[in-house]
């Protein structure tokens, strides 16, 4: 009996040990030569890894570069990174870790809108300057004091696309959207602004982010009378399959993709089927094609060259560009403020004017924590396996 009882108690003790072990989580960070700590949480794995992967690579690359050039305000930068796998709950835990345990000075990141939205209340409560890399408009509307973001909103992409459609005389279109966060959000935004451009959405189909064949949905669209163009908001391999299926079904209407596929990878995956596809994207993709007097040209060619030198020809994407912009904005704000004190950095950030980044010219203000205008987007068309600028509003 006694033995048995001891055993029970022992088991409970094991349980206790487990909990206690959890308590002695990784120790507090060292405070040696006082680096400025930049925290980041990204979807380096998981369904949004194609966002998080280039974002992390960009941050690591430029933190090293900045340190090699003497750091910020005489202090070196230190990047503290956690992989969320795209899970907002994990993002919340990691942001608490960044703030409470690692005691970072500022946070950049949040590859997906869900992660960014989930952690925003923490940034407000703990007063940490935060720049999100995610698309949703909800991140900056309504404006929160401590949260900024670098990518264009999905609404802007819709507006850019509809503008182009209008120019080409298309008023009746169909949409086929991915059901991931990005696709659904953009689908809703586009539905919202379509009437402003006199555009009617005749068919509205969706597909799962991991679907293997979309010909069924596209057949429905093909058989909808009056469709003049088709728009496909989505990211990952989905849009590539849509594009291939689109050609397979020999649909004649022009196909528009979103800024969610803005990397060479898309052309590689969709192959010949990608010919003639249009999409709105930041100038980064067509860096060399910009006119020499374009003020954005040096920034985008510089980033592109640096990224591709390290990670291979054609590897640059606008997603990494968002991370570049985020890091540079924070660094600039720290330089302007002359310190990494959160309140000062936040204020300097809010007063950023005329910063030229990969996404366009950024002008933050009290009421605008995005700071980009829709004309920061360029309309591109894929021709001969490469991006071609079809915008006449360049520059």
């Amino acid at each position: 009996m006694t033995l048995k009882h001891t055993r029970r108690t022992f088991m409970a003790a094991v349980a206790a040990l487990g909990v206690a072990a959890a308590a002695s989580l990784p120790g507090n960070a060292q405070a040696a030569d006082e680096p400025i700590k930049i925290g980041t949480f990204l979807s380096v794995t998981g369904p949004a890894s194609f966002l998080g992967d280039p974002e992390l690579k960009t941050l690591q690359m430029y933190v090293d570069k900045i340190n090699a050039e003497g750091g910020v305000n005489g202090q070196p930068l230190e990047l503290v990174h956690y992989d969320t796998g795209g899970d907002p709950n994990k993002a919340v835990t990691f942001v608490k870790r960044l703030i409470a345990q690692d005691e970072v000075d500022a946070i950049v990141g949040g590859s997906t809108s869900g992660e960014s939205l989930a952690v925003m209340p923490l940034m407000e409560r703990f007063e940490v300057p935060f720049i999100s890399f995610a698309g949703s408009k909800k991140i900056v509307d309504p404006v929160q004091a401590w949260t900024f973001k670098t990518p264009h909103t999905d609404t802007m992409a819709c507006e850019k696309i509809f503008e182009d459609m209008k120019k080409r005389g298309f008023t009746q279109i169909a949409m086929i959207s991915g059901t991931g966060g990005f696709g659904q959000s953009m689908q809703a935004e586009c539905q919202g602004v379509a009437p402003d451009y006199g555009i009617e959405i005749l068919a509205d189909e969706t597909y799962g982010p991991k679907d293997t064949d979309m010909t069924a949905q596209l057949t429905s669209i093909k058989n909808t009378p009056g469709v003049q163009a088709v728009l496909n908001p989505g990211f990952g391999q989905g849009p590539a399959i849509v594009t291939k299926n689109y050609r397979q079904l020999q649909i004649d209407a022009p196909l528009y993709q979103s800024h969610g596929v803005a990397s060479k990878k898309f052309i590689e995956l969709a192959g010949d089927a990608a010919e003639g596809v249009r999409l709105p994207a930041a100038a980064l993709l067509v860096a060399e094609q910009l006119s020499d007097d374009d003020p954005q040209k040096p920034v985008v060619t510089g980033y592109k060259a640096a990224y591709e030198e390290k990670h291979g020809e054609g590897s640059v994407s606008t997603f990494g560009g968002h991370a570049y912009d985020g890091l540079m904005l924070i660094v600039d704000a720290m330089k302007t403020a002359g310190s990494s004190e959160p309140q000062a950095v936040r204020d300097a950030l809010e007063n950023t004017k005329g910063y030229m980044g990969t996404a366009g010219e950024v002008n933050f203000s009290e009421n605008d924590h995005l700071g980009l205008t829709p004309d920061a987007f360029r309309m591109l068309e894929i021709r001969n396996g490469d991006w071609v600028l079809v915008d006449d509003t360049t520059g």
Partner: protein
Amino acid sequence: MNEATPMSPRPSSASTANISRPGDTTPPGAPERPAPQAPGTPRTGAGSAGRPRQGLKARLMKPRTGGLLVLAVVVAVLPAFLQNAFHYDVAIQIGFNAIVAIGLNLLIGYCGQISLGHAGFLGVGAYFSAITVTNFGWPPLLSLVVAAVVVGLLAFVIARPILRLKGHYLAMATLGIGLIISIILNQEAQLTGGPDGMIVDPFTVFGFEFKKPWHWYSLVGGLLVIAAWLSLNIIDSPVGRALRAVHGSEVAAEVVGVDTTRYKVMIFVVSAVFASVVGSLGAHYIMFLSPQEASFFHSVELVIMVVLGGMASTFGAVVGAATLTALPQFLTFLEDYEHLIFGLILMLVMIFLPKGVVPSLAALFKRGGEK
């Protein structure tokens, strides 16, 4: 437990005790088999759970009291080691997961019924609370209770057809139900915010807002001890004995007159309600809710907690939850290798401690006790 009483009215209680014999043939090492008990001993209220003739010391040494006491002490002492909001967060998440795992353990460990869809129940509870509180201004506590009832009913309705299935087919069915719930939560964006998730109002009870980490810690810690106590009582009741019979051999149990389906349904409902309550609270705690809470991965994670800690062991479920919640935080320094190493640890533990951490270590500690 009082819930047990309607299931086994006094006249049948003796016969229930008798059929506990097949239960005794459960796989060796099922660690929480209660000490042999005189057939028909009336189970009084849980407060006076011990048998009348036992002394105080004996009562404390009883697995239920002893183990629970240790758990309660750990919960009470742990805050001394928690240095910041992040530590509290991990501890609170462990508590949440442990409560779900304790419920799931009743199903997996004692009924031998796997569920790969439990995050679905958690998700329904979470979204029910989030939507009614945030969009319709219900009091959070009311929402939590109604959500639990709704999830309980849902579980009850689907339990009968589903629990007829065996083994992998049951796994598939629960997986399917979890996935259907997750698809609905993703698609009904008007209501749920879709894949981008929704912001959730804080948890307030009669004007008191749970805001500080230690508010939540106290709440979750308390609930964890209550959940463990409930679980131990269910195991140690006539129903529990019937349950072990189910795991041992369903046919044998039926032959001697145990209504196995009824017990399985009951436990299925109980475990779903545990998940629902945690879902509701978790949504308020994070103040944000995304469909990932109801995803297949989360379901699998919950099952791993139960199996890793040790099936048929309430404290195993707690250890499993603690391990699986805290381990990734320790592994972050591995960067790209994190998942590789995490998977390896999981495999190695299951290969060398196939019965789970707690039962295997207990057996080792016992140095060849029973068989």
